[in-house]
């Protein structure tokens, strides 16, 4: 029996029927009869359930959506979703039940004599689990719905999901609180030289255990869950992806702890850095540069700025401090409910499906403030990540773990 009993009084309540209604209104404006969603972000945003298997959501112009997922997971998705079991169907390799047949038959009932417009989700992404319709799926659906016109319509969801509602924001706040629990557990485990003999994977695991105990559903990032880097791995040139390895932590090296928690599809993502003592003055210089930059960046984020404007300001700050050559000149990545990662805002930039550098932030948008500092020749680097909520005159950093680079 489902335990998904959220009500309006619940701080994590999201009005999913309203989301669907808003989407349907936009479909009507664009003459779309049926929306066929396949991206992970769309599934999270419409179903309120995590869909790890290839899944689809069919949204008619009126009425409830119906999800299709691999049959082995359909009952669980129905249990967690706001939709009932009649609106979460399974597909499997059986006559009439394979995903193309089941979904095209289902869509067919909403088309007049098989004719109409079906919105699909196509594109590309640097994020592997994005979930755009594959070429093969597109061709098969087009074949199964020969009188229908399939058009790319993901912009509708992208636009509607841009400004976050209070329930979503609170889910991110809670996920970030859980991440802070993980960071405290890591700090307690490594302080006073207790890190000796530990490996990166062990740090990842003990953070995961603490976060799970605090209610995290999983270490959601596709980059290996909790990303832990030590020594030279912290300073890989331009690097911002460090799945934990079996490398042992060593004195005199930096340690990067980038951990992830999920709470009701809201995502926590905070990276904290250490110097495993004894630290040299040069290492301390790098660390101080980084902390100053993060502070400056968090002070600069607000509605009205844009990724390029902010990057220009930050790079000027780095130049003044004499450490610009160690910076990756980007200070953000997108974030939304599970599956919505990497690209900021809409697909309206000079490079399709990448962040528009001139996207102007509005109050209510969320992103990850992401800063990567790397000095490969000195085997040192640092990473900052924290979900932030853009406000009219600033931003709210969701993780509250004190910003510092402690010498352990």
């Amino acid at each position, binding site marked *: 029996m489902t335990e998904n009993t959220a009500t309006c009084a619940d701080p994590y309540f999201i009005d999913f029927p309203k989301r669907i209604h808003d989407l349907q209104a936009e479909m009507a404006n664009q003459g779309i009869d049926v929306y066929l969603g396949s991206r992970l972000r769309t599934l999270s945003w419409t179903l309120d359930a995590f869909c790890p298997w290839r899944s689809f959501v069919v949204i008619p112009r009126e009425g409830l959506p119906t999800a299709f997922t691999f049959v082995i997971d359909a009952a669980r998705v129905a249990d967690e979703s706001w939709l009932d079991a*009649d609106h979460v169907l399974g597909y499997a390799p059986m*006559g009439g039940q394979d995903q193309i047949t089941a979904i095209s038959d289902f869509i067919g009932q909403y088309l007049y004599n098989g004719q109409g417009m079906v919105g699909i989700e196509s594109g590309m992404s640097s994020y592997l689990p994005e979930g755009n319709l594959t070429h093969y799926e597109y061709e098969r659906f087009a074949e199964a719905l020969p009188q229908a016109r399939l058009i790319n319509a993901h912009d509708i969801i992208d636009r509607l999901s841009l400004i976050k509602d209070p329930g979503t924001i609170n889910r991110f706040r809670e996920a970030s609180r859980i991440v802070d629990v993980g960071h405290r557990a890591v700090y307690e485990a490594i302080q006073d030289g207790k890190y000796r003999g530990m490996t990166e994977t062990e740090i990842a695991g003990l953070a995961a255990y603490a976060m799970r105990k605090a209610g995290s559903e999983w270490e959601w990032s596709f980059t290996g869950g909790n990303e832990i880097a030590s020594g030279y791995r912290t300073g890989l040139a331009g690097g911002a992806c460090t799945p934990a390895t079996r490398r042992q932590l060593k004195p005199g090296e930096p340690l990067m702890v980038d951990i992830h928690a999920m709470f009701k599809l809201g995502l926590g993502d905070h990276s904290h850095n250490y110097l495993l003592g004894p630290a040299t003055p040069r290492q301390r210089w790098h660390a101080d540069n980084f902390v100053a930059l993060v502070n400056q960046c968090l002070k600069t984020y607000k509605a009205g700025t844009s990724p390029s404007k902010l990057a220009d300001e930050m790079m000027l700050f780095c130049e003044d401090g004499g450490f610009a050559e160690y910076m990756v000149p980007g200070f953000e990545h997108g974030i939304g409910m599970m599956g919505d990662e990497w690209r900021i805002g809409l697909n309206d930039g000079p490079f399709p499906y990448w962040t528009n550098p001139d996207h102007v932030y509005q109050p209510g948008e969320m992103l990850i403030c992401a800063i990567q500092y790397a000095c490969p020749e000195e085997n040192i680097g640092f990473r900052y990540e924290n979900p932030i909520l853009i406000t009219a005159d600033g931003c709210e950093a969701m993780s509250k773990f004190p910003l510092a680079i402690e010498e352990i």
Partner: protein
Amino acid sequence: MERFRYLSQEWIEEAAKRLRAELTPEKMKHVTSSMLTVYKSCPDGQERALYYKFTDGVIAELSIREGELPEAEFRIIGDYETFAKISRAELGSRAALMSGKLILKGNMVKALSLASVVDRLNKVLATIPTEY
């Protein structure tokens, strides 16, 4: 031994009698549902269907239908010969579905939970001395 022509009125009556006698509501998991098995390419070239209606595990209706078919929660579609092979135990119903010889329409998650009931039902039908 008396033999019944497959899908004839006599066969239907015998099937209903045996199903009611052998499948208790408990064995039928107290299911309330409906199912149509649609036989394409019958020996006379026609298409017909067997309609099952279950109420709380009791077979409330078993009838042969032609022409416009009634609504049913599940619809299983296949050639007459495929169903005949299943009844003669020459082909498993699951294998027929997995190979696409049978097509299932309806909520598969619910269908899976009723698979054992359908297996029991098929076993009883297979005991009817039948002429295909």
